[in-house]
């Protein structure tokens, strides 16, 4: 029965990977093929709201099923809180663009929600890294922290150097553009460490949430660069990375919901 159980887990992991890749391909292909068209903003904004919305729903299902106690109970409640804040931010951004016709509303109220989410998301990353990060050697931790610091320093230099913003909001805009990579770097450290420590454990071999954070870091960096040049040029590729990140969050939540939270029906089926 143990073998049967493991084969079932492997099969479900394979389906999840295929499903995730198919979802990313379908949603990002729509974003790509509508780039430059009249409906570009609709597709960009609605796809991001849709993907983060799906992750939010799943996170709330998890919180209702497992409660808020224990290491994972608290960590997933915080993740849900962070994702809700990001969803609100995406909705506000979408409302500005699609409802009020303000193209690329930056800085705006949405940034307050995006930045506020780093608290609960950071809590999730650091608390779950206690579980997933056992056995990481100190030199690896030092290298990752040093690399994150150096990369963030150069990113900040680049963002500040290419800034072409002028006027009263310019300082706020640059400040917010700088805040994203700084906060990202803080949560990126546990994410990268967990990815380097991954590959083991039938239930834990793919660190979905940490991969999602890595993608988010890339998207935030690109958005920061675009924001300080007043959103000159295309931004659809950034939406594609955000969608991939949100879908990775969703894959992680799906996996956790199915494999980690006790399900009486599953036990009956395999017994």
């Amino acid at each position, binding site marked *: *029965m*143990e073998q049967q*159980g493991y084969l079932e887990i492997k099969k479900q992991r394979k389906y999840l990977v295929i499903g995730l890749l198919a979802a990313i391909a379908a949603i990002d292909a729509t974003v790509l093929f509508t780039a430059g068209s009249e409906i570009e903003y609709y597709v960009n904004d609605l796809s991001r709201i849709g993907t983060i919305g799906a992750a939010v729903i799943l996170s709330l299902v998890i919180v209702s*099923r*497992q*409660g808020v*106690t*224990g*290491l*994972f*109970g608290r960590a997933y409640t915080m993740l849900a809180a962070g994702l809700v804040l990001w969803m609100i931010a995406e909705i506000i951004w979408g409302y500005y663009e699609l409802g009020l016709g303000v193209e690329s509303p930056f800085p705006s109220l949405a940034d307050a929600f995006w930045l506020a989410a780093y608290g609960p998301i950071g809590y999730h990353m650091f608390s779950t890294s*206690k*579980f*997933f*990060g*056992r*056995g*990481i050697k100190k030199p690896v931790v030092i290298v990752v922290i040093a690399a994150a610091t150096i990369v963030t320093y150069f990113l900040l230099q680049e963002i500040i150097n290419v800034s072409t913003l002028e006027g009263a909001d310019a300082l706020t805009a640059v400040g917010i553009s700088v805040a994203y990579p700084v906060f990202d770097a803080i949560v990126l450290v546990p994410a990268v460490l967990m990815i380097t*420590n*991954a*590959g*083991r*454990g*039938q*239930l*834990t*071999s793919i660190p979905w949430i940490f991969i999602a954070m890595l993608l988010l870091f890339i998207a935030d960096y690109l958005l920061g660069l675009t924001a300080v040049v007043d959103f000159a040029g295309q931004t659809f590729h950034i939406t594609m990375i955000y969608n991939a990140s949100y879908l990775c969050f969703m894959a992680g939540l799906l996996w956790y919901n199915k*494999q*980690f*939270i*006790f399900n009486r029906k599953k*036990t009956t089926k*395999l017994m």
Partner: protein
Amino acid sequence: MVNIVQFGKLPKDGDGSQTVVRQAIDDAISSLGGPIHKTIVWHMNNRGVFANPKKIDINFIYENLRELLGPGADMIMEDTWEHLQKQHGVRFDHDFERKHSPAEKIQRVMEIGEA
């Protein structure tokens, strides 16, 4: 060679120490959250790990936890050891404490309990 310098409140008979260790493992897994505790115990039962509640094979438990949870297994073992130290006052001499993994220390506690 006896490495324990303090046995604390831990029962000195074999069955008693097995029960205490089993309870400590259970508490460590429970600290992850109730539903996860049930899932892990369910997987462990399927593998026959907890088949005999009076006979604990800590290395077998650790191996199976590691297969299932990867690095998380080490956290469960560390928490189990911490629990035994805090709740039952078990202590080893500094040298043994430093050189051995939590699973090895728990194994030693049970060996001494059985002796």
